[in-house]
């Protein structure tokens, strides 16, 4: 995993009625080195780091190593920063496809939604 314990730490996993839907509660690591460059003096979570975080949660959910083969649509609905949202919840649902999974995910906290994601991931 590229970003676990570097960009975020896993706090807790909530199960649901379906084995292929779980919610991952994460703490963003405010002194992660990515914020030195994104942006100097103005730490903002890179959207692509949140996309990678969704992929890593999907890998934990499915127990498989995955590649983002397509993103049908990923909307970034609010600017996330380690100050605005020190803790986030990533809800992931996987549906099996011939080559892997269709992944539906949202990143949110109690205040707002930061990302809505839909796409296919392929098993590597």
């Amino acid at each position, binding site marked *: *995993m*590229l970003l676990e314990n570097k960009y975020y730490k896993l706090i807790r996993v909530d199960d649901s009625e379906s084995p292929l839907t779980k919610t991952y509660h994460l703490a963003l690591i405010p002194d992660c*080195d*990515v914020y*030195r*460059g*994104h*942006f*100097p003096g*103005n730490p*903002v979570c*890179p*959207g*692509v*780091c949140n*996309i*990678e975080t969704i*992929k890593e949660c999907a890998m934990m959910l499915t127990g498989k190593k995955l*590649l*983002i*083969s*397509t*993103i*049908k*649509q*990923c*909307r*970034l609905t609010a*600017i996330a920063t380690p100050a605005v949202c020190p803790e986030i919840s990533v809800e992931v649902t996987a549906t099996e496809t011939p080559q892997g999974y269709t992944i539906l995910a949202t990143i949110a906290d109690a205040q707002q939604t930061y990302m809505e994601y839909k*796409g296919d991931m392929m098993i*590597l």
Partner: protein
Amino acid sequence: MEDIQKLIPQRNPIIQVDELTRVEGDSAETRLLVKADNYFIDEDQLFAEPGLIEHIAQSASAFAGYQALQQGATTPPVGYIGEVKRFHCYRRPAIGEQLHTTIIMGAEVAGVTMLTGETRVGEEVVADTQMKIFVEQ
């Protein structure tokens, strides 16, 4: 063309464009050499998919920065990804491969610009996407 740090607000370790190589009308080209110490090199020693998306976003950012400088700005604008749509990753590039990306900018409405990006290694397309970027005014 210009030093990339004049064209984009990102700094290391997240810089994902080496050079803006061509601007013509509403299209531009950039390049990036994938190096072993790149932030997005994964455990397979390949350039991970989010790195490709960031490379395309920063290619658009460099294009916007170039246009802003031409119009007299002294610092590049800070833009954020608003949406990624119809992204495909055909394969993850390897260390040592040179990425060439073509950006085509669409219309800007209320600070939001739609664009398309295509990244190639040689003649082979490795990723393409549509994206909405919004720029802080």
